[in-house]
């Protein structure tokens, strides 16, 4: 009679399948998501039922926080460099290569152009201090906002303007911005909102 052999079960599990799953998920996340961009101000957007998605590229982003400070940002590092040198030539400020490089890494900013040099020389962590960014001047006496928009517009005609304002922003600020955009003949733009469910909106 042959001896009954008891097979010892191996404790090694084949990890290949697990690996497949992990990388499949990874690929999915990489393709469907986009990086959260750090914005210069915390903005709580109002809700609307509009379902139009925000375009990803070629956006001039105008941020307005609850206190009415205006921030500005465009996408694309090359575009940012070109924008800053253009603004520099308008205001007779020479930005060197390092400053341009530094500026190209900033998503949005809210300092007057005259203080831009000091702003760029700060460390990235220091720039977050809300006391440093007190908004881009957009009064009729010193309307730098207007120059930023027209400089950005001159880079490319494809840019879309998007305004992201806080729910609690006072209307006069918005009116001022809209007036400036109107003067620049920018009559179509997007207002960024968060989605509101339209359950109770059904018309009977």
């Amino acid at each position, binding site marked *: 009679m042959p001896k009954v052999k008891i097979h010892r079960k191996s404790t090694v599990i084949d*990890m290949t399948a697990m*690996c497949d799953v992990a990388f499949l998920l990874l690929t999915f996340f990489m393709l469907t*998501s986009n990086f959260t961009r750090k914005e210069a101000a915390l903005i709580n957007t*109002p809700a*609307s039922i509009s379902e*139009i998605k925000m375009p990803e590229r070629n956006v001039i982003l105008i941020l307005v926080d609850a206190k009415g400070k205006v921030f500005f940002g465009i996408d694309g590092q090359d575009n940012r460099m070109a924008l800053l040198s253009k603004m520099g030539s308008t205001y007779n400020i020479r930005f060197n290569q390092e400053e341009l490089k530094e500026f190209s890494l900033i998503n949005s900013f809210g300092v007057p152009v005259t203080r831009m040099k000091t702003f760029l020389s700060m460390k990235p962590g220091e720039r977050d201090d809300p006391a440093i960014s007190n908004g881009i001047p957009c009064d009729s006496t010193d309307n730098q906002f207007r120059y930023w928009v027209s400089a950005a517009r001159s880079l490319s005609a494809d840019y879309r303007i998007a305004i992201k304002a806080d729910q609690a922003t006072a*209307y006069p600020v918005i009116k001022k911005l809209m007036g400036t955009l109107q003067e620049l003949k920018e009559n*179509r733009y*997007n207002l960024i909102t968060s989605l509101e469910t339209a359950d109770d*909106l059904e018309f009977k």
Partner: protein
Amino acid sequence: MAEIAQNHRRGRKKGRAKKLSTRVDFTPMVDLGFLLITFFMLATTLNKPQTMEIALPSKDKPKAEEQTTVKASKAVTILLGKDNKVFYYEGTRENGVDPVLKQTSFAPTGLRQFLIGKNYDVMVKVRNLKAEKDKKRFSEEDFEKQKTEIIKDKKAPIVLIKASDDSVYRNLIDVLDEMAICNIDRYAIVDITPFDLDLIANMTAEKQTGNETK
């Protein structure tokens, strides 16, 4: 492959070469995969922000033939006041008689009900169109096309949105939203006039005196 060939050449005399296991331990690879997933999940967002498209009239004076005169009977003026208050009146000042200002709210029973009432014909048409679409009679694109045709109705009300300096951005978005919900195509954001401010001031003053007499 190369290794096997090498073994073949050298190993003649030494006898059979040991077969190397082709199994690779994938555990560290899995670790790496999940680490990267975690990173991507934390560092990215899935949802794109929503936007509302808006087109404002240009500042150039329109030519005479392009100008539309608003018929007083069709005009609705919405006033945005302090503390999320919203008022409306129909028509304009005529023959020295002020229009009646009414206060309402952003609740579904407030401003929306009024606007739906004003725009009832269009609302019914759009609803019927939507029902047709749900029965798969035509595509989404056709639906949008026909809807834009319907809401251009000449009899539909024309809304003037006037935000006072005390109002906030949210109120403006809410009103623009109501325009979309109530299928109102013709609306404009206009500067508030002293006349409108007077109307609001009178109304709040009347309310206060009314409360006092009670």
